[in-house]
């Protein structure tokens, strides 16, 4: 920096007052330097350095472009200026009746903001667009507003901490970004008791309104009414009370659910029920509120508004905080409507209720089923974070069961195994970590989940190989079944089978998620079903092996009694879980062959791009599985070998769909106590039935009738397609 003796005499007085000159620095006027620099580089020009990459280019913001510059001044320079200008008056209105209505508007809009935040926008631009919330202490003279805002803030804080602790927030890091926001306040733990006091007062007032007129006068003298119009008192008390109570119980739900090992679930469920009934009351209050507001809007127009009254709330300015957002362009935020916000909270509460009613199944397989069933409801981030907090706490399942014990139980090992020294083996410890990480991944949104599963599947595969190697080193070649094999060998054998089973389960989940995410196009269905088919076979094989070894002892005794091996084989029943997989295998195989025959006999349009072939498509879809050798020896070559010869003339000899249907019908009694499985069986039946008919039709007419068109729909099952045959 050039030192300018003259310049130091006349520095700008403002600058001097902010940052004084130091030993090494001095204020100087650089206007002329800038002026000459400006002629060197024109607007929009760029000096391209080596390290200037796309990220740097994308991070550049154009100042004063409202699409990019989040610091652009919209209305007020600062919060203080907004308050000075009367943007958030206290009381909101000098007319007491209007004041109460304004408070209700604020409550409603805050709820809409909160739902918008949960749905993936920044806290700063939603809930903290509320000026009252940004300066909470200002409202302390207004008990109703103060208590409501305070509990809202405390709940947001609790939700932020749950989500950040779960770290399920995937790409939604924006959710927990609270920099610069007054999210934590001293004494917020008392927010519920404060709210409770206000609730009491208004409840008393409501009782007084409802009391017979003789006693009314006496009671009314004791308490101050909520507002000045006696005819409206009851309606306003009711409308305010349900809003307060919803907040109170919702706060309870969130705190109860955080108790370790699901101990607060029973209580949480009670609060959830209350929350839901209060939400009903809030919805009903719309009739009263609208009858008292001169809104001048049509009903359907009001439905898009963020308040029950349809009025604009006072005291909100989303632009005040936009500078607090990350160094990204401001996101366009549309606050969801009041109706949608209530629907959101109803859905959230239902999702939380499912978590709270889960019996904490100690069997790993049960956990997996629960998580996948839960994910079918498409729960949002907050619910998923709570599920994850339940499943993985302190490095244990439910914060209760040590991972090794869970693995032993899952691998059908006897109780004694869980105390075995093998649990300190380096790779077994790694396996424990992998199990927990996988559980966490299963709680994330489907898009993120699929990507992470695709990566972690490699880890499962590698760990399997390492375990196999380690066991072989420690216990030598695993001998074929012997009655008195030692426990270490037994444990290692069981664990290896179990690890493979989990690997194939994850691979199958990875493949199936592709349907939900709409990643497959109809020209890829054939290879996708083929892959599902080969992975399912492996999964069924491993599951069967695991269950068989578990029954070893029982069956040995049985055999001795009967003393007839043939009979035993005849009587042997496949376990229902394996048979269910078998159903799915038949469906996948049937669909593969049907699609292959359609492709081979020109009934389906072959889409060939100018740049690559089916082989590249295959590799792109299954790259991650192929790299992990899942399943072993399966490649594009195997796919084309098994599908290239499919023809309708031979297809009718195989009864894939009929076999699936038969097993599904028989299986119903085995799953009579399990509604999820029964529903799955019904879906399988429908797909199998329709496809059997379609296949029969194509086989008989397909080659003769060129006008016959076949396409596939997901009308009966989320991932097994139903063939539809039509004459064009």
């Amino acid at each position, binding site marked *: 920096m050039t030192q300018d003796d003259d310049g130091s005499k006349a520095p700008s007085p403002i600058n001097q007052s902010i940052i004084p000159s130091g030993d090494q620095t001095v204020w100087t006027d650089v206007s002329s330097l800038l002026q000459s620099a400006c002629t060197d580089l024109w607007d929009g020009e760029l000096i391209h350095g080596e390290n200037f990459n796309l990220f740097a280019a994308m991070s550049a913001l154009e100042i004063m472009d409202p699409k990019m510059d989040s610091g652009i001044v919209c209305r007020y320079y600062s919060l203080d200026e907004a308050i000075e200008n009367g943007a958030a008056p206290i009381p909101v209105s000098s007319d007491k009746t209007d004041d109460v209505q304004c408070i209700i508007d604020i409550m409603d809009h805050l709820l809409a903001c909160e739902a918008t935040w949960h749905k993936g926008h920044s806290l700063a631009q939603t809930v903290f667009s509320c000026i009252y919330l940004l300066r909470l202490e200002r409202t302390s003279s207004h008990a109703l507003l103060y208590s409501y805002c305070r509990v809202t803030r405390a709940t947001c804080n609790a939700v932020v901490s749950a989500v950040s602790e779960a770290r399920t927030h995937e*790409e939604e890091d924006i959710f927990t970004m609270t920099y610069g926001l007054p999210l934590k306040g001293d004494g917020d733990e008392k927010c519920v008791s404060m709210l409770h006091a206000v609730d009491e007062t208004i409840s008393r007032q409501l009782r007084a309104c409802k009391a017979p007129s003789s006693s009314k006068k006496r009671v009314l003298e004791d308490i101050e009414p909520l507002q000045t119009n006696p005819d409206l008192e009851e309606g306003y008390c009711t409308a305010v009370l349900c809003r307060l109570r919803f907040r109170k119980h919702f706060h309870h739900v969130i705190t109860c659910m955080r108790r370790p090992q699901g101990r607060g679930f029973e209580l949480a469920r009670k609060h959830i029920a209350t929350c839901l009934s209060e939400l009903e009351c809030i919805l009903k209050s719309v009739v009263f509120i609208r009858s008292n507001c001169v809104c001048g809007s049509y009903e359907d127009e009001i439905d898009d508004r963020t308040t029950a009254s349809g009025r604009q709330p006072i005291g909100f300015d989303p632009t005040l905080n936009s500078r607090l957002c990350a160094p990204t362009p401001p996101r366009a935020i549309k606050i969801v409507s009041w109706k949608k916000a209530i629907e959101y909270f109803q859905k959230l509460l239902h999702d939380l209720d499912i978590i709270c009613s889960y019996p904490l199944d100690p069997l790993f397989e049960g956990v997996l089923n629960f998580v996948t069933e839960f994910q079918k409801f498409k729960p949002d981030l907050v619910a998923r974070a709570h599920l994850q907090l339940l499943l993985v706490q302190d490095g244990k399942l439910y914060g209760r069961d040590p991972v090794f014990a869970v693995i032993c139980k899952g691998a059908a090992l006897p109780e004694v195994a869980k105390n075995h020294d093998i649990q300190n083996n380096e790779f077994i410890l790694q396996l424990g970590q992998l199990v927990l990480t996988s559980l966490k991944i299963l709680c994330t949104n489907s898009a993120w989940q699929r990507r992470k599963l695709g990566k972690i599947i490699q880890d499962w595969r590698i760990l399997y190989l390492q375990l196999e190697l380690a066991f072989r080193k420690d216990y030598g070649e695993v001998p074929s079944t012997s009655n008195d094999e030692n426990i270490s060998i037994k444990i290692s054998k069981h664990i290896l089978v179990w690890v493979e089973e989990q690997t194939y389960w994850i691979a199958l989940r990875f493949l199936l998620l592709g349907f939900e995410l709409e990643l497959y196009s109809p020209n890829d269905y054939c290879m996708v079903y083929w892959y599902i088919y080969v992975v399912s076979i492996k999964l069924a094989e491993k599951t069967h092996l695991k269950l068989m070894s578990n029954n070893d002892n029982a069956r040995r005794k049985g055999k001795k009694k009967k003393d007839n091996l043939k009979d035993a084989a005849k009587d042997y029943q496949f376990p229902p879980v394996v048979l269910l997989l078998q159903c799915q295998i038949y469906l996948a195989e049937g669909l593969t062959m049907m699609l292959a025959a359609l492709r081979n006999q020109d009934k389906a349009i072959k*889409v060939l791009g100018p740049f690559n072939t089916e082989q590249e498509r295959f590799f792109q879809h299954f790259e991650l599985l192929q790299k992990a050798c899942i399943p072993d020896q399966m490649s594009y070559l195997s796919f084309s070998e098994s599908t290239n010869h499919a023809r309708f003339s031979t297809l009718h000899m195989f009864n894939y769909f009929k076999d699936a249907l038969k097993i599904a019908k028989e299986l119903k009694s085995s799953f009579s106590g399990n509604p999820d499985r029964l529903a799955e069986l019904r879906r399988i039946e429908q797909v199998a039935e329709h496809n059997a008919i379609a296949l029969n039709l194509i086989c008989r007419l397909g080659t003769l009738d060129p006008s016959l068109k076949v396409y596939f729909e997901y009308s009966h099952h989320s991932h097994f397609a139903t063939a539809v045959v039509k004459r064009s």
Partner: protein
Amino acid sequence: MEDDKLEEEEGAIEYVSYGGEHHLPLIMNLVDQELSEPYSIFTYRYFVYLWPNLSFLAFHKGKCIGTVVCKMGEHRNTFRGYIAMLVVLKPYRGKGIATELVTRSIKVMMESGCEEVTLEAEVTNNGALALYGRLGFVRAKRLFRYYLNGVDAFRLKLLFPRPELSSGRFIIENEDMPQESERHQ
């Protein structure tokens, strides 16, 4: 007859490779009008200065009505092409102009030794998804709320044929993959 007349009236579409500074405002105008994401001038410059040969413009009667902007480079041990922006003005859609533009870029990428081409498209953009589907792109991933407007994206990928694929053998890669920075690759 009628069709011929129309064709004549419409005139031919002229395709040109990025030719310098005078093309930049044309590209920026088109993209600003049609795409949801805001880009600074530096983003445009980044692409067209480093890979002018991958950017093309389509003109009709002297008016720029479509453009494609791309890059290529090393990405996790693969040499990868990336289609950053593709725009054709509404009245000119459905005539294969976008396909022609993007095909030209892809051809240059292929000739330059790219192993694959990727891009992101909004899940709701059926036109673009169909176009890339016809060219052989596969939906590799879904990116949750990828765009500033909150819409999900598909990561589309086109893999070029390569010799080692046909062997059907793969080795497990024991790699600690770094976190992807999906938004800015």
